[in-house]
């Protein structure tokens, strides 16, 4: 169905009982176009970065290599970061796979389960000596992407007219969803590591120990609490 060069199956006929190659191609074309359209809708910033022509050609290869396994098209394209990492024409755009990962994470955040956050007061009420032993349940919408490229600046530059020009440096992104719209925050790699450790159920002390000394734990917790990203202290 996805191979444009494959022969039309036997037994498919037009009203006169003759060959129906073009009629069969309507289906073949619908399948390829609908999958390509789904990828375009899913990765608008990747598309903007590479241009329409490159994106269409790339999508055509992707959809044949990774046809959807599920009817949930909202999550189609999950292999895009890995695909782009190995896609020869994209080798000069090292940041592209990480931008695709950000777009995937935004979609997952958008569709993630709703959750009721704890109040900052609940956190403030913890006894100081208990602090490092607690675990934080993180809202399902919360995602991080860490990159050796300035992914936050690149994302901003392609979504806002007033954003500054990206400067070459490593950046990480935290995605939260305080209400219905996912929000992007620039964080550093240590903060991303710490948040992923918290998501996996490690205590605050353990999560802190996974990150290097560039971690500002107070800032990370302040951001998570302000963004309704903590749903339970346990």
């Amino acid at each position, binding site marked *: *169905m*996805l191979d444009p060069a494959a022969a039309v199956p*036997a*037994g*498919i*006929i*037009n*009203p*006169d*009982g*003759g060959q*129906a*190659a*073009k*009629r*069969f191609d*309507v*289906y073949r074309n*619908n*399948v390829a176009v*609908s*999958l390509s359209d*789904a990828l375009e809708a899913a990765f608008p910033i990747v598309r903007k970065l590479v241009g329409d022509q490159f994106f269409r050609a790339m999508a055509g290869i992707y959809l044949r290599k990774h*046809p*959807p*396994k*599920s*009817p*949930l*098209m*909202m999550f189609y394209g999950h292999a895009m970061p890995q695909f782009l990492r190995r896609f020869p024409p994209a080798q000069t755009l090292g940041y592209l796979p990480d931008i695709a990962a950000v777009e995937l994470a935004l979609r997952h955040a*958008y*569709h*993630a*389960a*709703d959750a009721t956050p704890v109040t900052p007061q609940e956190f403030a009420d913890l006894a100081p000596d208990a602090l490092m032993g607690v675990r934080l349940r993180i809202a*399902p*919408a919360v995602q991080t992407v860490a990159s050796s490229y300035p992914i936050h600046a690149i994302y901003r530059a392609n979504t806002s007219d007033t954003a500054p020009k990206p400067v070459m440096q490593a950046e990480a992104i935290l995605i939260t*969803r305080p209400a*219905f*719209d996912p929000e992007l925050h620039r964080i550093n790699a240590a903060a991303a590591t710490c948040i992923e450790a918290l998501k996996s159920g490690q205590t605050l002390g353990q999560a802190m120990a996974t990150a290097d000394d560039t971690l500002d734990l107070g800032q990370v917790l302040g951001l998570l609490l302000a963004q309704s990203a903590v749903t339970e202290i346990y």
Partner: protein
Amino acid sequence: MIHLTITYPKAAAMLDATQTPLLPARPGVGYKAQHYADIMASPGPLGWLEIHAENYMGDGGRPIAQLRHLAERFPISVHGVGLSIGGEDDLDTDHLARLKHLVGWLNPASFSEHLAWSTHDSHFYNDLLPLPYTTQTLTRVATHINQVQDVVGRQMLLENPSSYLAFAESTMSETDFLRELVARTGCGLLLDVNNVFVSATNLQTSPQAYIDAFPIDAVGEIHLGGHDEDQDETGAPLLIDSHGKAVVDPVWALLDYTLAKSGPKPLLIEWDTDVPDWSVLSAEIARADAALAMVLA
């Protein structure tokens, strides 16, 4: 193993107000999020909304919240596009469970799927692909429909496809195939009159004759949509069911012909690609409303 056959109440029998609400015999529209505010502010004669099941299978967020809100105001029809009921493979039980979950919490006025396939060898093709009509495919599709109705726990409507080609191996007509499915499974039918027009043009048959042969008593809903016009390699007309344009006059005429036989039915305007402003859809809804008024007069 003993197989228990469960009989589902026909839509007309489900009038208990504590039960599932019915789709009213009024115009409905395929819901698009960009029309949310317009629908709430100026629905006009709009009587119900249809959603694509697969778009509401995320865990939460805005789509689910909006749907809850819409369901407080309008009867909802859940229209699945991904179950592959016409496929050779077993049904995807994970997907079936997701459908059961959605229908369970939403309690929609109607639930429908397509006489088509979209999944083969665990690859999902995101399109509605055709099947030949034989005793073998009839048995398989009936088994799938029974399984869906058993799991989801209610009657489903099955939609007639739009066809671009025919299968040499088919031994029965589409209308006989559908009639037999209704008899074997107790499912209802969703009659898409644009699909009838598209298929009849492409296969050079009569759309009125198709309607005459259609098991009209089983119809629980009617679809209307736009199509694109092309030609095949012999120069014969080839219509493509794109859902990206206004409904054409011959399809409105075919609707009148159908309603004269069926009586008033819930009528859906489907517009899924190049989705226009609400004012354009409102005009289509008004025309559907006028067609219904004519039958009632």
